[in-house]
């Protein structure tokens, strides 16, 4: 950090931007391999929206840091320990049920998070959140519909969907975690008390699962660490792939 730069805001923006960047990267792995053409197109839409949001958050983070780093420096030249995304978004695509469950858990949080961030005391944060919220409303509608469709579809699809929502459940707790930095940010009016969003998130998930004929997972142990840079082994591979050209040809312009 340069003198006078705002470390709390910088870290706060990285957390928001890295969630979008890594989830977008995961979704883009589907491009050309979707279960049906319309879904190929829709998933790519979501990936594009999230990539656009990542660029807005990371560009702003670079400005706030004040060391001349732009969106690409932050995306391509940080190592895994410096990434601040939640563990949920780096989980593998596995099958379409896992991809759908991951997206649904994230969208349901993201939608609530952005509606709070739209009221941020920081004008740029509020503006980015407002733009993103419009897109995420559609993401949530789409992923909710797929949870219901796959849950209440065939025996096989219900089984796969239940397996996926169970397996990913332990990665949802991190979304509502409040640490020292979140508390400072909240005091400054940057963003909300994340833990206070959990109840509304849970109500939405429960309502959707009821319609989808899915059981609400019962596990209480929650994985954590991503927001502090302690990730799953998967993130290293995501970055190795994503950062390849920038690492192999240092300083080149593309």
């Amino acid at each position, binding site marked *: 950090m340069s003198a006078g730069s705002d470390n709390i805001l910088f870290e706060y923006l990285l957390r928001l931007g890295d969630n979008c960047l890594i989830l977008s990267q995961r979704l883009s792995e589907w*491009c050309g*391999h979707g279960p049906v*053409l319309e879904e*190929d197109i829709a998933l790519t839409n979501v990936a594009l929206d999230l990539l656009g949001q990542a660029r807005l958050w990371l560009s702003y983070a670079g400005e706030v840091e004040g060391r001349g780093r732009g969106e690409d420096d932050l*995306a391509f030249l940080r190592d895994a320990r410096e990434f601040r995304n939640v563990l949920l978004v780096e989980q593998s695509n596995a099958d379409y049920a896992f991809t759908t469950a991951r997206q649904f858990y994230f969208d349901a949080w993201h939608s609530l998070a952005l509606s709070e961030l739209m009221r941020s005391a920081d004008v740029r944060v509020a503006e980015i959140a407002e733009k993103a919220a419009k897109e995420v409303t559609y993401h949530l509608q789409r992923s909710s519909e797929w949870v219901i469709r796959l849950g209440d579809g065939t025996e096989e699809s219900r089984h796969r969907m239940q397996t996926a929502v169970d397996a990913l459940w332990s990665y949802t707790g991190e979304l509502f975690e409040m640490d020292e930095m979140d508390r400072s940010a909240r005091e400054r009016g940057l963003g909300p008390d994340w833990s206070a969003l959990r109840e509304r998130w849970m109500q939405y998930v429960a309502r959707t699962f009821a319609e989808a004929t899915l059981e609400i997972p019962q596990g209480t142990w929650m994985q954590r660490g991503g927001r502090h840079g302690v990730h799953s082994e998967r993130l290293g591979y995501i970055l190795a792939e994503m950062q390849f050209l920038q690492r192999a040809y240092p300083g080149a312009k593309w």
Partner: protein
Amino acid sequence: MSAEFQERIEAGIKIEPKDEMPEGYRNTLIRQISQHAHSEIVGQLPEGNWITRAPTLKRKAILLAKVQDEAGHGLYLYAAVETLGVTREQTIQDLLSGKAKYSSIFNYPTLTWADIGAIGWLVDGAAIINQIPICRCSYGPYARAMVRICKEETFHQRQGFEIMLTLARGTPEQKAMAQDALNRWWWPSLMMHGPPDADSKHSAQSMAWKIKLFSNDELRQKFVDQIAPQADFLGLKIPDPDLKWNPERGHYDFGPIDWNEFYSVIQGNGPCNRERLQARIDAHRQGAWVRDAAAAYAAKQRAKARVA
């Protein structure tokens, strides 16, 4: 019907889905439009290969949007085939079974980032030259689909050229990467206009029906004439010692094309034929339970609506 039909064609009246048409005309269109649709879908694969490795976030967004456009082109071309009485499912089955063909260019691998530039510049460039005349072809739905596709392809070609320009003006390694991509994609791109006129088995009838408006060799010449000065501008060398401007003809002359390679790739011997088709088969097979679930859910909803 044949003489009357031909009169309509000559008069420039578009043929629409419900109009009577000779079986040969219908079958030619089904073959050609479905090949085109499959080319869009299989064409997602070589470029999709670099989405997760695009060098900047902006390039990643542009490439994602481009590959998504191709899926969209596939979608409305499959819809155009449906207007001729063949379902999308059947058309896709013909691809997966190996019965239907797609453009052979997509059986070549994308080895470096420069290949993404070369595909936009050369492959989309060759495709545009083939497709612009189709905007005026005799079958209404195909002509209309092609108007929209050509607009998007023109945009893609500019983006590809811009990637090449950035590399050509970049570091020595980047320039070498661009030259290597041009070396590998040049000849396969020339083959995209199809076999020489003398050997083209479908051409004469298609031209009479105004499904095809220019011959393969005419289209190829247009492509070479367009690309040669652009390569000069980039400071890259087209890998053809015979390529040179012929002031008498007002065109570039170019060397002989290795048609044995073309026919060999069509027969399945290209470097990626097997894996491209396998990728489509895998996506289709792994997506089966998702499509089944969506259909089962829709049926349940319809049943509920009837009871209510």
